[in-house]
């Protein structure tokens, strides 16, 4: 330790001129306001601004210069043997010189910064808007980075060895490796985890660079080239180790199965047994993963780079999933992929670039795909050939919500609903209905609906003939059954709001109503069916045979609405999410699930596949 200090003292003794320069520069901010032209500004503003700029600029510049020279100059001027012919260890030399450099930087910064800061503390805080410790940490960190990088680059380039080409190549390689480590995390929407990983990598790099000089001098000693070799070997080997560890960590983070999730959201389409399972993974901070999960078999399939099931669609036959894969969670655009769950086929890149604000739907057989973007540009594609079949611009699509579906493989129906749901703005609200003939490439405005409601909800019957429009005003809601193509009113009735009104398979509507004592009643076809007490209850899904599944926060009710009977009530089970999103999906059509299809329900951290009629539960995984 005394040797470290001896070296540091020696180095500092040589830096008198640097300290004098800093002291002279420290006067500059106080003299500058006297210059004509600068006088117009507030004296303290000029002092603090100039003072801070000079202090930071000088410190950072000096950090770079010291980094390049503290070892590099002695090496290239062959003066390193001065130290090595004395009983000084390589670490003593390195850390002594490093400490001297850091002390020099700190002293210079303090000398330059504090006089002007103290002259105008409030002005400084006003113009920089930074806590002092934060500002010091930033300047200190930047200075340390410049110092160490200066040293590394100085050593590499001063050796004049062709090895420097390899260093540059490895630098590029390391940058690519870091990108490869971070990128999969970006796909997992793990902002916090990425910050942590990036900070850890940075800290590891700093530690490597702090230690590199000691290793370099211990193995390269007084020889310039051997110093370079030793430095390169140390930096690259240790960085490789760090990157391999980080890479393994990323591989572990990314390698998630549904049972690694700690929070689980399940979105269960009515078609088939494949569900979307989305959640945050255990021990991985905010890393999220999305799976296609088969409730029948327990098989799962990971979908990468997809934010949630909102950015996915399932064909009516239940066979094909299309989803938007974003390169990272902040990306505004990605590509559409399709996958057929349950088959051995991998995800297929459709090479269709789609913005985050686009809507897309599959045709019922999954052979075609339609996309409408934020500007209303509608395009139909054929997936097998990856070809665009036809395109058209749908008018009045700004600030609207788009719903669309393939009436037939050749015909698309589009609902332009304004305003975007939900909004508080009172404006002219309504739905415009269009049909697009893919073969003829012709767009027809087939109908419209006007309303003064703030919230609109649209659902279309499975056959595409009738539509339910729920218009939610401040005090009451109205449900209208309309012709799905023309918007012509067929029937109108008071409703209980968006969440408590649904369109049934037979084209009628059902509403749920709660009384003052939390007793719920299901109204449909003139029948009033009491379904029991619950704090909250929604329509979850309709089962074939005239049955409805209702879902509360922790309970589940199956009702036979044809016979007006409650089939079963489970009090501890809850569906993890209410149905395939009836109000959010791009395809507004409701569908009816097969009564033999299991329901995804969770209870005390276990996901079960429950038979809705028998209530039989099969454990799928714990989370």
């Amino acid at each position, binding site marked *: 330790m005394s040797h470290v200090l*001896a070296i540091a003292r*020696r180095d500092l003794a040589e830096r008198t001129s640097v300290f004098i320069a800093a002291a002279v520069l420290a006067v500059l901010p106080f003299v500058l306001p006297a210059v004509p032209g600068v006088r117009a500004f507030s004296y303290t503003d000029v002092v603090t601004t100039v003072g801070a700029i000079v202090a930071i600029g000088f410190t950072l510049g000096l950090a770079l210069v010291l980094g390049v020279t503290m070892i590099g100059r*002695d090496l290239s001027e*062959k003066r390193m*043997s001065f130290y090595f*012919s*004395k*009983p*000084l260890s390589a670490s003593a030399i390195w850390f002594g010189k490093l400490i001297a450099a850091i002390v020099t930087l700190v002293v210079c910064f303090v000398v330059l910064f504090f006089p002007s800061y103290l002259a105008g503390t409030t002005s400084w805080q006003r113009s920089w808007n930074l806590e002092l410790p934060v500002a010091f940490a930033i300047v200190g960190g930047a200075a340390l980075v410049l110092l160490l990088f200066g040293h590394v680059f100085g050593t590499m380039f001063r050796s004049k060895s062709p090895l420097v080409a390899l260093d540059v190549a490895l630098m590029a390689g390391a940058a690519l490796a870091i990108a490869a480590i971070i990128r999969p995390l970006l796909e997992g929407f793990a902002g916090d985890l990425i910050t942590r990983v990036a900070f850890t990598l940075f800290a590891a790099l700093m530690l490597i660079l702090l230690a590199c000089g000691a290793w370099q001098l211990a193995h390269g000693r007084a*020889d310039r080239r051997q110093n370079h070799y030793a430095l390169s070997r140390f930096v690259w080997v240790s960085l490789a180790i760090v990157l391999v560890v980080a890479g393994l960590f990323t591989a572990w983070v990314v390698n998630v199965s549904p049972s690694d999730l700690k929070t689980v959201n399940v979105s269960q389409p009515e078609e088939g047994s494949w569900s979307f399972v989305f959640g945050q993974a255990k021990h991985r901070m905010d890393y999220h993963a999305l799976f296609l999960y088969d409730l029948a078999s327990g098989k799962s399939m990971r979908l990468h780079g997809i934010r949630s099931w909102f950015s996915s669609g399932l064909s009516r036959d239940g066979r094909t999933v299309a989803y938007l894969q974003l390169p990272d969670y902040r990306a505004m655009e990605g590509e559409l992929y399709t996958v057929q769950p349950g088959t051995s086929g991998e995800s297929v890149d459709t090479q269709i670039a789609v913005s985050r604000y686009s809507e897309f739907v599959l045709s019922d057989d999954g052979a075609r795909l339609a996309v409408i973007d934020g500007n209303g540009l509608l395009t139909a594609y054929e997936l097998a050939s990856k070809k665009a079949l036809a395109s058209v611009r749908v008018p009045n699509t700004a600030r609207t919500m788009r719903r669309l579906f393939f009436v037939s493989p050749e015909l698309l129906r589009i609902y332009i609903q304004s305003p975007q749901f939900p909004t508080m703005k009172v404006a002219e609200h309504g739905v415009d209905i269009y049909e697009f003939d893919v073969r003829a490439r012709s767009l027809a405005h087939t109908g419209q609906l006007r309303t003064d409601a703030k919230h609109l909800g649209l659902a279309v019957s499975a056959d595409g003939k009738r539509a339910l429009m729920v218009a939610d005003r401040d005090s009451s809601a109205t449900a209208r059954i309309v012709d799905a193509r023309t918007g012509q009113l067929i029937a109108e009735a008071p409703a209980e709001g968006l969440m408590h009104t649904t369109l049934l398979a037979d084209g009628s509507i059902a509403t749920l109503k709660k009384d003052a004592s939390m007793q719920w009643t299901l109204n449909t076809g003139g029948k009033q069916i009491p379904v029991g007490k619950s704090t909250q209850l929604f329509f979850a899904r309709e089962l074939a045979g005239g049955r409805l599944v209702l879902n509360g926060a922790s309970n589940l009710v199956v009702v036979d609405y044809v016979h007006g009977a409650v089939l079963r009530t489970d009090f501890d089970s809850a569906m993890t999410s209410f149905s395939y999103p009836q109000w959010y999906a791009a395809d507004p059509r409701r569908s009816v699930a097969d009564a033999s299809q299991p329901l995804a329900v969770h209870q005390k951290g276990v996901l079960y596949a429950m038979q809705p009629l028998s209530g039989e539960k099969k454990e799928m995984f714990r989370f």
Partner: protein
Amino acid sequence: MNHAETPAIRIDGMTVRYGRRVAVDTASLTVPRGSVYALLGRNGAGKSSLVRCALGQQRATSGNTEVLGEDSWKHRTRLMERIGVVAEDADAPPEMRVQQLADFCASLYSRFDTKAFDARLDRFGIAKQTRFGDLSKGQKKQVSLALALATTPELIVLDDPTLGLDVVARKSLFDEVIAELADRGTTVFLTTHDLTGVEHIADRVAIMNDGRIVLEEELETLKARFRRIRFAAQPVALDAASFRTALVRNWGAGTEAIVSNYDDLAFERLRSNATIQSADVSAMSLEEIFIAVAGEKQ
């Protein structure tokens, strides 16, 4: 380990390569304790590489180097406590004043003798407030030597100490070395290409040529076996007397031969057997031997 038994320096098969260039080629040498050992070689012969490796400042490509019984690469830090070094280019930071240098060294060595340093500096007539960079080349070497000796080393290594020094500076440098030898019996290892003064004090020499140690022995036996023989006419076959010639060349009308295994009796026999009109046998200075061995090869 018994000090008397471990040599001050033992280099065994040292090779130093810079890329494809071989600077030191399987060099081996032994510097006994208490000796004054001179490693001779022309500029670029590889002396400095050998010295830097011996001092643990540079890693030899291969070979073993023990100094004062310890591996000089592994235990350099500890060893330097016991070794005084005067480097080829006297190498202190130019900004440091002589006094600062002395203070710096005093803080590093447990046995730093400030009085001895001051006394030597007085003898050299160097002011302590002078910046090292402002000293003349000779003064730099003198300061380096004074620093090295002030650490009361067991071994002192002088890498080309007289390089660039004038006669007076060289004399005063050697005076200090001789005084140190007389007072403390320190082992001296020096390299040089300039033999003035060295011949008086060296008791063991090695000659290095193109990275190889071509010769290593006691100076006395070396001088005893080398002779220059000049023949007025064409020479008789020297190999008849099993003389090995280091060099044979024309000398005026006659021939000059340098014999590396001379002995009087053999030469007398040769003289009586052959009809040698005129042959002049003369002893050679170390410098002449060095030139014959290392100088005239292509």
